[in-house]
């Protein structure tokens, strides 16, 4: 069986027709969909070259490519070629999913973002800030940003090196730095005790959803930078993707309100250099349905909309062709075969036309291509590399068999 399902027989390194999005940005390829790609590229050009915060709602059917887009554009190296100087000094892409436990939604989102940022990076950022502005000025800046003395001080402590003798952190004298780091980390995850608070010299913990979004806002501001807004090259663009926001439907009002209002406050706290992309699955294409679930707090902040619409037959054809091109082991044209190999051109057209208009989305196209090619390999329509080809008749036969199976007949 392993030999029969050898995708090298059809000049492909592997099955390119995945039914789930890639797990890592490096694995993502972009095939076809030039309009959609351009929309994102235009968005990122603006993001890298100007200060304005962007709040983007990406909406489309399940399987239309929203998560794939998040993965693909989650790699900085794909963004830099889009712009010329002057541009931001760096880009920080973060990908998180909408929390699955509504009761702790704000905590889960906060924790996921902090973990994505990594404490080692945060410590370095605050250390650099202290080196640039001095201890007193940094402390004031952070307390102003969080609108809280203890919360601001906690962030400031992240950037202080333990001292051997005397000074601010006398408590940590002769203690290993790792221990202090852990104590501070547990503070940020709200798992420290009253004794720990006393040891850290902080009067209170991070107690509420509002606190968490305030801390998050300031930590993200540390990444973005505190330089004057117009100095684009002194800032980092933060690109935060939140996937599966349709899951807000699982939230009761008492969970939903602090979460969406917290996100809104986060947007308002970061009026520059933030790109927030919200992925929302919506089968109907009725944008209003998405805004109802998101609520006014978030909807009112949206600056851009990207609709992952079903593909036209021509777009679907090009998508499959280009996807195969990304995974070619050899160019079939060099063997006298069509570029659509293992399909004849007509067979590929037939395959696209077997899908209903709303089903012409990447996931369903992938699924159908995978079914047809696998079946061709199993039925030995293709017996060796380049030997045999998929005809329109074969596509029709596989699709009809599949429909019969779906009907249970």
């Amino acid at each position: 069986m392993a030999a029969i399902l050898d995708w090298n027989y059809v000049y492909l390194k592997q099955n390119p027709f995945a039914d789930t999005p890639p797990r890592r940005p490096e694995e993502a390829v972009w095939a076809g969909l030039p309009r959609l790609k351009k929309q994102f590229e235009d968005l990122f050009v603006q993001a890298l070259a100007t200060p304005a915060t962007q709040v983007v709602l990406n909406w489309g059917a399940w399987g239309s490519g929203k998560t794939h887009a998040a993965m693909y554009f989650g790699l900085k190296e794909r963004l830099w070629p889009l712009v010329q100087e002057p541009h931001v000094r760096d880009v920080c892409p973060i990908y998180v999913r909408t929390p699955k436990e509504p009761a702790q939604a704000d905590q889960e989102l906060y924790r996921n973002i902090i973990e994505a940022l990594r404490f080692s990076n945060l410590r370095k950022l605050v250390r650099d800030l202290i080196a640039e502005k001095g201890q007193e000025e940094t402390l004031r800046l952070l307390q102003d940003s969080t609108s809280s003395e203890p919360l601001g001080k906690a962030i400031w402590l992240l950037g202080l090196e333990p001292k051997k003798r005397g000074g601010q952190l006398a408590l940590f004298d002769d203690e290993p730095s790792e221990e202090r780091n852990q104590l501070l980390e547990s503070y940020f995850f709200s798992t420290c005790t009253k004794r720990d608070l006393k040891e850290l010299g902080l009067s209170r913990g991070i107690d509420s959803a509002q606190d968490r979004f305030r801390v998050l806002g300031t930590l993200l501001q540390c990444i973005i930078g505190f330089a004057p807004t117009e100095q684009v090259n002194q800032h980092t663009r933060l690109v935060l993707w939140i996937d599966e926001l349709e899951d807000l439907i699982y939230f009761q009002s008492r969970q939903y309100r602090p979460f969406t209002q917290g996100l809104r406050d986060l947007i308002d706290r970061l009026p520059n250099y933030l790109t927030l992309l919200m992925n929302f699955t919506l089968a109907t294409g009725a944008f209003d349905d998405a805004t109802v679930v998101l609520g006014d707090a978030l909807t009112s902040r949206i600056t851009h909309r990207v609709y992952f619409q079903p593909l036209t037959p021509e777009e679907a054809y090009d998508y499959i062709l280009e996807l195969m091109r990304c995974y070619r082991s050899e160019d079939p044209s060099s063997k006298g075969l069509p570029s659509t190999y293992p399909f004849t051109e007509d067979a590929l057209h037939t395959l696209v036309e077997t899908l209903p208009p709303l089903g012409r989305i990447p996931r369903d196209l992938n699924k159908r291509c995978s079914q047809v090619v696998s079946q061709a390999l199993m039925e030995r329509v293709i017996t060796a590399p380049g030997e045999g080809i998929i005809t329109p008749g074969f596509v029709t036969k596989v699709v009809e068999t599949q429909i019969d199976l779906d009907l249970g007949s």
Partner: protein
Amino acid sequence: MPCKPLCIVDTCSLIYLSDMELARRPLLRWLFDEFETVYSQFVWENEVQPHLGKMGKGGQILRRGNAGVQKVWRMPGPMQYERALFSPFSRVEQKSRCSRCGQAIMEERTVIINLGSDEDRGERHNCGVALDAVRRGNYRQVVYLTDDHHAIQKYAQPVFDIFPLGCVWSSYDLVLYLFVRHCDRMIAEDVEVVFRDLTAKAVNEERQQGISPETQQIWQQRLAAYIHKLERVAQVMKQLP
């Protein structure tokens, strides 16, 4: 002639409504004040009574003064009603989806219902209650309140499509009705909160059994549809003298 309309409620809706409030009043209290609320003996004995402990405030309301048992609709021969209504029985079901346009292909099918099984008997007996209430002349129309959409498709809608007994409501309809009746006592935002909570309760319940993306989409559309209805109702109510 009783002045309140009759509402036949299923267990699912009772559970959904049991812990919710509208304008600082338990939703079940609203329901019981507005409607003569009843259910079949089977529903009471096998579905509601065993779950009273899990129904929070709603459970307390139903326990107080034996209120729960008093809502049982007493009818002669419930099994005869069940047999007459559901054997034989046909309903419109989705046969498949068109592979070209994606539209659902529906057809009317004769279905054989296992009347010996207790599965879905509560829904079937509640349909019998609806017929009995109108047939014996006490109520001219009834409201059949359920949030179990499978049960609606399987039993309630096919019965109400043939027998003009009244209408099938979801809890969203009930809440919207309360807003129409008492808009001086509540604001649209309160109603929206209840819509969201009802939806969350329903989808979380379904999630425990493994919710499909399609079902999640149906709830999403339902929430959106009722919020749009609410906007329209609020808009109209504001203009009234």
